[in-house]
């Protein structure tokens, strides 16, 4: 299936949850915040949140700033 990941189309396997996708992409859930269809998903709910075709995912982290 296809999702929009950080603004870009991305193909993922069907029936996958957000935590699994982060693991596949080697992203540490403790270092990022995830927005799923514009709602923030608390870390403890990443495993129970399934992705569907057409979903939008934003994965955000801290960078340098003033």
């Amino acid at each position: 299936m296809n999702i929009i990941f950080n603004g870009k189309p991305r193909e993922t396997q069907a029936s996958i949850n957000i935590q699994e996708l982060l693991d596949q992409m080697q992203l540490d859930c403790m270092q990022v915040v995830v927005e799923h269809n514009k709602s923030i998903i608390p870390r403890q709910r990443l495993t129970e949140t399934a992705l569907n075709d057409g979903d939008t995912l934003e994965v955000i982290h801290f960078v340098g700033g003033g």
Partner: protein
Amino acid sequence: MDELIIAGRSFSSRLMVGTGKFSSNEAMVASMEGSASEIVTVALRRVDVDNPQDSLLQHIDPKRYLLLPNTSGARDAEEAIRLARIARAAGCEPWIKLEVTPDPYYLLPDPIETLKAAEVLVKEGFIVLPYINADPVLAKRLQEVGTATVMPLGSPIGTNKGVRNRDNIAIIIEQATVPVVVDAGLGAPSHAAEAMEMGADAVLINTALAVARNPGAMGVAFKKGVEAGREAYLAGLGKQQDKAEASSPLTGFLHQ
């Protein structure tokens, strides 16, 4: 130095530092340590999965520094509120440096969107530190909605031009009921000292540290500038006047 108190929390440093634009994490840490700052700002961006970087946060000791996320990149109130909520979800304390800068050329803050976002974020329990142009009326309006500070710019972000709006900053300081943090544009320790001499409660420095040949040493230099300015303000500066006033008695000259 006397303590800085923001939203009931005490800090012994009056210098906040940014973490952007450094050539390396080591340079950033050296600057933080040199500055003896206790508040450091960070930004939020999308993870770049094609160019993985190590985590910024692993270089910042949370016991030593209060992490102050900003909402940089926000073009309106809605985007700023979204970024603030993301920062809180990341596990940060609910402190937020509110920045709404729709114009990428001068990066000047949008006063209307900033005020709108501040109202919402204060109601949601955030400790809001808004970045503003040096507009005394806006500063008052923000205080009234409950922001923890006001953060007027000295000159546009990253310009190193110093305090180019002294008169308005002076009015903001005179009318402030919350700490005034001069943010943006301070390019030299003398600029920081100038803001502190005027009675600013703190300053925030990023670019001047990040672009220094030696960011650690520049951090120390800014620390001294801030301390000198604060101590001079507390000690009481003499008034400026146009006419000369001799330092020695005008009697007893050899020619008399």
